[in-house]
């Protein structure tokens, strides 16, 4: 295989906890961080004789997800039992969906969706041993609060090609789900979980290689890094002529190492069969109408609206439409200062986010109001770009108000012939050789003169204005 180009083939399995009031099959209230085993009942504890009854609101959220993803919605959908033994699975089976899922096909962004189905979440297994992960613990403690939480499982086609693309697409999915209001989609809290199926194949081939499954990555950053690491691991194996073993893997972000998660002495035989305790769910016209009526503006529509109505550039429109928090922040900035041009506001938001890395703008020290103020101060030439960037640095570090920072640091723009002319003249006087060359038509040293003036004004002058004044004073206008 050496010498052939290898391309990654990535498919994602995403589990989304739905923010209904109650669990998927019983009336226990959902909640995060409640004391252990305080949100249970005979049904979600799997007591003898208990029976499941499906949550109509979860079905509704499932339909909304399907519509947002342009999926085909099954007219009749059945639940199946997925049978296996584990302490976090009280019945010894999970009620899920098999061959008649709620939604089939669909597309989001550039990625095709394979299916979306509903199922119940497992309980939480906490490790009583000191190591904090399962290996090495002698015993585990089960908390059934989470057990039974409604989940939508979204499976993509194996079409993603890079860790970066996965990160970007997951953000789009997250924005979509958050906009729909169906989930908190919070990776740290576990309401959004993503597993990746990864394989490599010769570029251009239509065969799929052996895939591994990378599980339990609980942030966007870890997902990207984990995928990158696994792609490299497989690449190295293949290039050495070894084969990839199908297995489930864990990525340790601290050591960037990939380890086998479960010893797979036998593949799971889930013995799926239709859930006899739940009649098939008929999706009625009324249910479809309600879901359609409650669909909010989705990212693709928002993107188009930003272009059409706000004249945002396609890049800005997509950036904001695909990242809900950023779009909300952008909207807040504009609401704060109505006079701002949308693209101006957009540029400042983009500038800010660029400095924040993984932190969301809304979580930073820079409030939307203060960013809006800063932008309007630039627009009104109270400060110039250079000064504004210094102010932004301060805001990012310490928060605060732009006007106060400008005053405290003396960053008001220096402008106007009265203020600048003497400084320009000084700079010219201090550099007679350069001035001579300039008068002679050699424009190269002009940057030095402008730079002197900028230094003198501590960056508070507008570069263009200074340049114009220099030329004027040299008689070159």
């Amino acid at each position, binding site marked *: 295989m050496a010498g052939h180009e290898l391309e990654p083939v990535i498919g994602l399995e995403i589990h989304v906890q739905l923010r*209904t*009031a*109650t669990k998927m099959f*019983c*009336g*226990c*209230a959902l909640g995060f961080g409640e*004391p*252990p*085993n*305080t*949100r*249970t*009942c*005979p049904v979600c*504890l799997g007591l003898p004789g208990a029976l499941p*009854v*499906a*949550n*109509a*609101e*979860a*079905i509704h959220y499932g339909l909304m997800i399907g519509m947002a993803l342009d999926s085909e919605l099954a007219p009749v959908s*059945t639940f199946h039992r997925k049978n296996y*033994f*584990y*302490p976090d699975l009280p019945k010894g089976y999970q009620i899920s969906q098999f061959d008649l899922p709620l939604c089939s096909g669909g597309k989001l962004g550039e990625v095709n969706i394979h299916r979306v189905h509903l199922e119940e979440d497992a309980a939480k*297994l*906490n*490790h*009583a*041993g000191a190591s904090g992960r*399962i*290996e090495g*613990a*002698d*015993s*585990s*403690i*089960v*908390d*059934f609060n989470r057990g039974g939480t409604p989940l939508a499982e979204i499976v993509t086609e194996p079409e993603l090609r890079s860790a970066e693309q996965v990160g970007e697409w997951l953000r789009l999915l997250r924005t979509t789900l958050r906009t729909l209001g169906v989930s908190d989609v919070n990776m740290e809290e576990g309401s959004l979980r993503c597993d990746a199926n990864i394989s490599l194949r010769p570029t251009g081939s239509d065969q799929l290689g052996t895939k591994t499954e990378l599980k339990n990555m609980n942030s966007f950053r870890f997902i990207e890094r984990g995928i990158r690491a696994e792609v490299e691991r497989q690449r190295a194996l293949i290039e050495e002529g070894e084969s990839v073993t199908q297995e489930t893997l864990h990525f340790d972000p601290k050591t960037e190492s990939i380890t086998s998660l479960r010893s797979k002495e*036998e593949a799971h*035989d889930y*013995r799926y069969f*239709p859930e*006899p305790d*739940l*009649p*098939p*769910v008929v999706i009625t016209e009324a249910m479809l109408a309600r879901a359609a009526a409650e669909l909010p503006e989705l990212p693709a529509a928002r993107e188009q609206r930003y272009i059409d109505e706000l004249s945002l550039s396609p890049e800005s429109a997509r950036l904001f439409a695909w990242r809900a928090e950023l779009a909300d922040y952008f909207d807040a900035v504009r609401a704060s200062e109505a006079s701002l041009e949308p693209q101006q506001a957009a540029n400042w938001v983009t500038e800010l986010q660029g400095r924040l890395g993984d932190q969301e703008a809304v979580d930073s020290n820079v409030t939307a109001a203060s960013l809006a103020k800063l932008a309007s101060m630039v627009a009104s030439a109270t400060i110039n770009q250079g000064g504004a960037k210094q102010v932004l640095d301060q805001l990012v570090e310490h928060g605060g108000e732009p006007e106060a920072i400008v005053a405290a640091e003396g960053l008001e723009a220096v402008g106007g012939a009265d203020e600048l002319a003497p400084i320009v003249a000084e700079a010219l006087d201090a550099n007679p050789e350069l001035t001579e060359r300039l008068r002679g038509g050699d424009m190269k040293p002009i940057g030095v003169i402008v730079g002197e003036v900028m230094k003198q004004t501590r960056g508070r002058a507008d570069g263009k204005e200074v340049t114009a004044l220099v030329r004027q004073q040299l008689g070159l206008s």
Partner: protein
Amino acid sequence: MIDRDELLHVARLARLALRDDELDATAAELSTILDHIATFDELDLGGVEPTAHVGDVDDSLRADEVHASLPRDIALAPAPAVRDDGFLVPSPQGE
């Protein structure tokens, strides 16, 4: 019709320990039963749909309304082992 190895595999799936001296007798019993069951292969079932659910239920969904959960002490009462307000079990790893 079901041999020792298959039986062991099925017992594993069902998490049922089978002692060595139980294996052959159980395999024999199950084979007899399975042989008898296999007689239904004689029926021509072309085009017949499976019955997964008997009867027609309209309205089998539940409104998203909270019902009181069990008090924790009641939930934990029948547990064979409890620790830190949870159900204690041996580790899932380690054969």
